[in-house]
Structure formats: structure tokens, C-alpha cells
């Protein structure tokens, strides 16, 4: 290679570098680099840190139901579905939370929560699988992780916290930043497209796990009939598309899943386990009669 050609290449390279990375930008880049390592990498450790803060924020508003048997039941069903996903090795942790409201939540790293109010409105394990499949899909597709990271990136408070972390290496800065973003995200909700995507993926995860994949559709038809002005629906409707819109979107894909329609229902196991959230006599004796009046029967 001739000297003049080498020189012109060097000059061109320096010009490019100067244009792209002026001196201040190089300094800024180093700081951003430190921020990214702490908060915005796609590493599992960072996801678990953010998920822990998000889960703690949710459990700051409601707490797990104190019934180990039901909690273990939901963990077994949930993990079986999660094992069919692209992220079977996460530390999946499921819990029923003690709220009469109708909702379910997911947090990065593998946390999934369902309210007692929603659980009691379900009729079978396949319906539970539909709900858990939807939430597991949020984790697998990193919906909350991406939203929390984006919020943290654009938040001035977050940047200051990031800077402090870069200086001091304190994990508490990560926690504070993530929980601040979580308060906002979980009260406003994800992008609606993320919800539709989680519906589609959740149905498939339920099918992969051997359940009747129409459970989620049945749940949405149940929710369609709960008074939208009810306080119990307030958070769900503030953070999700309407049940009607979700049913309409799902109807475009569910027609092709007929071959799995006769698969596992698990209504007896479900009612036996979830019935443990109720006190015994005299109510227990009345449940079968009431349940028989509660179409659709399975």
C-alpha cells in the first residue's frame, strides 16, 4: 500500500472519529458505558436485579396469600408451563396475592403473581394455564424489562442514580431506580401490542404444556362480563386492552388450535386446590350445587 494512500486513509479515519466522537462525547460515552453495565445490559444478573425490585414494588401494594398448599400448586402448574418456554432455566417464582381485584402481574427474571380475585373467577386448570401462560410470555419476551430499562434511561433521576452507582457501586441505587420505574409502569401498563403479543404466546405455551389452549379465551369471556365500572376491574382495565379487543385479536389465531382443544382441562384438581382458599362447612357443602349452575361446565 502506498504511503500517500495510507495517509489519506488515516486522515479519513481521524475525520470520521472526530465527527462521531468529539472529546466531550468520548467522556460521556465512558459514563454511559458504566451506566449500561449497571442497568441496561441484557445480562441475566441485571434482569434479576431489576425484577427483584419490581416484584418488591408489587408486593408492597399487596401481599401473598398465606396458604402454602395453594401457593405450591400455582408454582407447580406455572413452572410446568414455563418449562415449555424459551427460558426454562429462569428462577420462576409464582404467587397468589391477597387482593379481591381481578389482575395478574409479571416481573423480569421470572416472577408471576395472580390475584385471589382472578383465581376464584377461573373454572379450570386450563384457564389458570392461560393466565399464567400470558404472564410467563411477558417475562420470556422481556416486555417489562425493556419498558423498565427504557424508562430508567430517559429518567433524569435514573441517570443521577446511575451516576452514583457508577461512582460507588451500590446496588441500592439499582433497586431504587428500578422500583421507581416499576411504580410507574405497573400503574400505567405496558404497550398494548405487548399485551396482545403475550396473549398469543400464552395460548401457545398452554398448548405446549398439554392444556386445552382455549382457557385464556374463556377467561377473557368471563372478564368481558364483569362490570367494567367495578372497582375490582379498575387496575386491569387501566393497564390492559379491553377483554373485547383481546378476544377479537385472539380469535384470529385460535381457530387453528382445534387439534389441542380436547387436551387437559384439570377442572377437578383446580377446584379442589382453589377451594382451599375457602373456609370449610357450611360453605363447602354448598359449592358443588352452585358450581353446577355455573356454565360453561367442563
Amino acid at each position, binding site marked *: 500500500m502506498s504511503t500517500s494512500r495510507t495517509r489519506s486513509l488515516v486522515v479519513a479515519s481521524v475525520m470520521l472519529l472526530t465527527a462521531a466522537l468529539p472529546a466531550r462525547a468520548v467522556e460521556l460515552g465512558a459514563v454511559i458505558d458504566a451506566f449500561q453495565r449497571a442497568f441496561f445490559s441484557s445480562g441475566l444478573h441485571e434482569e434479576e436485579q431489576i425484577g427483584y425490585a419490581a416484584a418488591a414494588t408489587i408486593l408492597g401494594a399487596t401481599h401473598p396469600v398465606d396458604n402454602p398448599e395453594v401457593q405450591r400448586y400455582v408454582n407447580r402448574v406455572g413452572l410446568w408451563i414455563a418449562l415449555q418456554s424459551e427460558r426454562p432455566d429462569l428462577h420462576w417464582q409464582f404467587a397468589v396475592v391477597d387482593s379481591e381485584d381481578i389482575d395478574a402481574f409479571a416481573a423480569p427474571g421470572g416472577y408471576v403473581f395472580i390475584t385471589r380475585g382472578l383465581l376464584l373467577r377461573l373454572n379450570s386448570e386450563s384457564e389458570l394455564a392461560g393466565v399464567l401462560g400470558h404472564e410467563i410470555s411477558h417475562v420470556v419476551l422481556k416486555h417489562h424489562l425493556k419498558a423498565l430499562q427504557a424508562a430508567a434511561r430517559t429518567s433524569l433521576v435514573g441517570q443521577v442514580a446511575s451516576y452514583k452507582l457508577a461512582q460507588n457501586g451500590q446496588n441500592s441505587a439499582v433497586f431504587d431506580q428500578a*422500583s421507581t420505574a416499576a411504580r410507574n409502569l405497573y400503574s400505567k401498563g405496558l404497550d398494548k401490542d405487548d399485551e396482545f403479543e403475550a396473549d398469543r404466546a400464552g395460548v401457545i405455551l398452554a398448548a405446549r404444556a398439554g392444556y*386445552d389452549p382455549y382457557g385464556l379465551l374463556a377467561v377473557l369471556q368471563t372478564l368481558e362480563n364483569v362490570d367494567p365500572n367495578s372497582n375490582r376491574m379498575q387496575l386491569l382495565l387501566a393497564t390492559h386492552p379491553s377483554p373485547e379487543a383481546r378476544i377479537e385479536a385472539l380469535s384470529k389465531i385460535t*381457530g387453528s388450535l382445534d387439534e389441542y382443544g380436547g387436551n387437559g382441562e384439570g377442572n377437578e384438581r383446580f377446584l379442589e386446590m382453589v377451594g382451599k382458599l375457602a373456609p370449610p362447612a357450611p360453605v363447602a357443602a354448598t359449592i358443588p350445587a352452585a358450581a353446577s349452575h355455573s356454565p360453561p361446565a367442563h
Partner: protein
Amino acid sequence: MRWGSYLLLLTLLALGAMAAGRPDAYTVSATPLTTGPFTDAAPVSTLAAHTSVSVLLRKGGWYQVSLDSGQSGWLRMTALKFTSVAGEARNSVLVGLLGLFESGRSGANGTTSSTGVRGLNTGDIAHAVPDTAAVDGLKSWVATPDEARQYSAALPLRPYTVSYLDADGKPGKP
């Protein structure tokens, strides 16, 4: 308080019985009524939009229904909407039974006693003080993969290979 609860229970049961004995859903558009819960089942007839039906059973993506005319058959579940009154009764009977009595006394099996309706609204989340101890406590209920596999096999369930479907129903990404 307790007598009020029993009265409400009786009302709920009556509502449930009424819902089971009359048309509780209607077709959202003209839709075929078939002899079985599958696409190539023989057609019975075509129901016009807004035809009232009683739902008897769900099987996968299909509802078995009966009509006032005495006709019965199967419809795709997305072809139906439940009427709101029947839907309310349908959805609240079990909830009423389970939730109602817990609000009046301590729950069994270590269930947390409720002293009233617990709300969880956007404000509760927006002002939540993080509870790390509650997150740490979740570990005690976690299942191992082997437990999850054995529990699923007991239903019985078995895994299938199924592709994600996109918004248009094409295989690929969800």
C-alpha cells in the same frame, strides 16, 4: 351481618339457577351450528346474528348450546357473547360463596382473614413501598422442575411441539 350474608348467598344461588335455565348468550354474527366441536362436523343449520342460546358445555374452542326451538349443536366460542346479567350471575356465584364468608370470619387452612374488600388500584401501585421480605419469602413455595413434571404427568398432561403464531395466525414469532 351473618344473616345478611346468608340472604345474599340465597340470592346468588337463585341468580345462578335462573342463569342456567334460560338463554344466557347470543351469537355476534351469522354462524354455523354444527353436530360436533370441530370444523368439519356436519352443519345443523346457520344461526342468524343475535340469536339467543343457552350454553351447556365448553369443549376446547367450542360451546355446546341449545335454542328455545329445541335445536342444539356446537358453535365456535368466539361466535358467542354472554349477556351481561347472566354473565354477572355466572361469574359471581362461586366468588360470592368463597369471598363472602371469608369477609365475615377467619379463613381456614391458614388463609389470611379478610376484614373487608381489599382493593388494588393504580394508586396503590404508584405509591407502593417495596417489600423485599415478601419477595424473599416466595422461595419457600417454589417447585423444582422434577416436581412440576411429575405434577403435570399426574393430571395427565404431556408436552407438545407447537409454533408461536403471529397476529395474522402465521407460524413464527408471537
